[in-house]
């Protein structure tokens, strides 16, 4: 039995207390990291509900149910922020990434609690791969929403589309790491690889734009 609510309270209270004393962007970032952690707790409940509803085992659930639940849950606070506070477009990706960071951090904390912290290699790989995956999904949904909310007519179709894309991307990762051998290694490496490709392409585009 893992008491994730207790872990959440223990980790989030110092962060929430710090909000009293910090201002500006740092405050917003810390708040959304905490929200990301809270969303991780809630999505664990939702995934468990569906797992019991369909009567599937943990591996099957992590491949077919959890990715979709997690991506849907992560979207809610971001959507709330966009619709209620109507932020500037450049603020949206930052918030999406902060939520993802909180989510990935708390997921890793739960993993540590369940499996211990003795195996350094495994924890390093897990930190890099799942961290990169959640951040990649955050980048994708953050920039995507910032892009589609420019034109209200495509807001709903675009948003559901982005959610579907993130869900299947996450599911492919979970599917790969659930396998053995080369598939598992591909799963561990491809989110980090994609971040490197993304950053390289971004720099290349900026360079080419300057040359024009």
């Amino acid at each position, binding site marked *: 039995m893992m008491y994730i609510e207790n872990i959440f309270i223990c980790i989030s209270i110092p962060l929430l207390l710090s909000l009293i004393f910090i201002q500006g962007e740092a405050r917003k970032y810390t708040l959304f990291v905490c929200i990301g952690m809270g969303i991780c707790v809630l999505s664990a409940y939702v995934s468990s509900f569906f797992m019991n509803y369909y009567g599937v085992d943990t591996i099957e659930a992590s491949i*077919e149910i959890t990715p*979709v639940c997690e991506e849907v849950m992560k979207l809610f606070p971001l959507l709330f922020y966009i619709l209620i506070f109507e932020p500037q477009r450049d603020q949206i990706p930052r918030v999406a990434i902060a939520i993802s960071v909180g989510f990935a951090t708390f997921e890793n904390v739960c993993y540590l609690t369940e499996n211990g912290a003795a195996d350094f290699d495994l924890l390093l790989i897990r930190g890099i791969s799942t961290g990169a995956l959640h951040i990649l999904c955050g980048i994708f949904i953050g920039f995507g929403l910032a892009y589609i909310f420019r034109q209200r007519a495509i807001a709903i*179709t675009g948003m559901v589309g982005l959610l579907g894309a993130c869900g299947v991307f996450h599911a492919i990762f979970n599917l790969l790491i659930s396998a053995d051998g080369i598939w598992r290694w591909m799963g561990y490496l491809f989110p980090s690889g994609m971040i490197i490709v993304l950053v390289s392409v971004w720099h290349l585009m900026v360079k080419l734009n300057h040359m024009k």
Partner: protein
Amino acid sequence: MNFEIIDNIFQVIVFSLIVVADIVCWFLHKNRLYIILALAHSCFMMGTLYFVLYLVIRGKVPQFFYVSEISWIASYLFLHSYQIVGYKGQRMKISVIPLICGIGVAIISIWSGIFGPAILSTGVFTLAAGAIVYISVFQILYGDAPYKSSICILLCIILQVSLYISSSFFHDYTRFNLYFCIDIVLTISMAMLLPCTFMEVGKDDVH
């Protein structure tokens, strides 16, 4: 080798290449249509990739929660967004023939039980397919702009619905049959959207 795997690998390769081409076109033309098209193609590719990986790694098709379907529906939602962005500024009104076609496709989608007991997925696909068919038929019949992409999108929807219907009649996916024929034509039709867009969008036409 199982023909289902060959067909899906073909689809993944074609869509991967098309996504790269979409991104290159977007970079060269700075037109939002290309990036939406890239999203539509990449969603289709990821849905198929998930399916084929599941088949290869676990040796069976997904049983409980069909993640691939969500990705394919997302692809059609992006196609709908493509239409909205592409035909922005053109007047749309209620017309009988497009309406009949749209409702017809929606009814067929519901009647054929495309996603089985998954009511939400069926509902979203039905709405998206109906709306896409309506706009496409409207553009073909009454639109001022070129309509090659509309024909392509309409063909994709018809083929997708036909694919779902044909899956009820074929149960052996190890050999080539009509199901795979439709799937390959669907892949090519989806890929053809890029050249159609390229022909329709001018270099200075920035959305």
